[in-house]
C-alpha cells in the first residue's frame, strides 16, 4: 500500500467543531507553541551566562513588542497546557470519561487557565513594562 493512501490520524476537517475537540487540539497547539518558547528560554539563560554585553542584546530582543506579545501568549499557553494536561492525566488514570464529566472538566480547565493567566499577567506587568 502506498504511504499516501493510508489515512493519517486526525481528520479534523470532517468533524463539526465541538468544544471538547477544540480543547484537545488547543492542548497540542499550546504545547508546540511552548516548544518555541523553550528556545527563547535557552537563549535567555545563555545570554545571562555570556556576560553583560550579550545580556544587553537579549534585553533588546525581549523588549520587542512581538516578543512581549509572545510572552503573554506563553503565559496563557502555560496555564492552559498545565490544567488540560492534568485533565489528560486523570483520563490516563481512568477517571472522567463520561460525556458529562468530560464537558464539565473541559469548562473547568478553561476557567482555571483564564484565572491563573490573569493573575500571572497582573504580576508580570511590571516585568513586561520595563526592566528586560
Amino acid at each position, binding site marked *: 500500500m502506498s*504511504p*499516501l493512501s493510508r489515512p*493519517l*490520524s*486526525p481528520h479534523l476537517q470532517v468533524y463539526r467543531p465541538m468544544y471538547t475537540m477544540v480543547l484537545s487540539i488547543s492542548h*497540542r497547539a499550546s*504545547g*508546540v507553541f*511552548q*516548544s518555541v518558547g*523553550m*528556545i527563547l*528560554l*535557552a537563549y535567555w*539563560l*545563555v545570554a*545571562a*551566562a*555570556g*556576560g*553583560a554585553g550579550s*545580556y544587553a542584546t537579549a*534585553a533588546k530582543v*525581549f523588549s520587542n513588542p512581538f516578543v512581549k506579545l509572545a510572552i503573554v501568549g506563553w*503565559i496563557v499557553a*502555560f496555564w492552559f497546557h*498545565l490544567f488540560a*494536561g*492534568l485533565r*489528560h*492525566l486523570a483520563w*490516563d488514570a481512568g477517571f472522567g470519561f463520561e460525556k458529562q464529566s468530560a464537558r464539565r472538566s473541559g469548562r473547568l480547565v478553561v476557567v482555571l487557565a483564564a484565572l491563573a493567566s490573569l493573575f*500571572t499577567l497582573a*504580576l*508580570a506587568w511590571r*516585568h513586561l513594562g*520595563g*526592566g*528586560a
Partner: protein
Amino acid sequence: MSLRSPLGYVLGHGSAREGVHHWWHLRTTSAALAVLGIWFVFGILTLPDLGRTSVVAWLGRPVNAVLMMLFVAATAWHSALGVQVVVEDYIRGKGARVLVLIGVRFVHILAGAAALFAVLKLALGGKA
C-alpha cells in the same frame, strides 16, 4: 489462549517494538513539569527585576540552580516527545517525516544542552 510468544510477553515491547516508554516518559515529565513549571513562573514573578544582576544572583543560589536545571531538562525531554507525536501525526511522506523528526530532536538536544551549560556556568562561575 494468547497468540503472543512467551518471549514477546516478558519483553513487553508490543507491536511497535519499543514498549511504552515514550508514553510513560511523556506522563512522568508532565507531572514533574507541573511542579517545576509553577516554581519557574513564580521564581520569575518574584524577582525584583529582570536585570542581569538579579538573574545571576537568583541562579547563583544552589537550590534555584538545581531546580532550573531540572526544569530545563524536563522541558526539553517533554517537548521533544510531544512535538515528535505531532510530527508523526501530521507530516506525510516517510522521508520528510524522518528528516523533521531528526531535526526536531537535534534542536531539543541543542537547546537543552545550551541552557544546562548556561545555568552551570552561572552557578559555578562565581561573579562575572
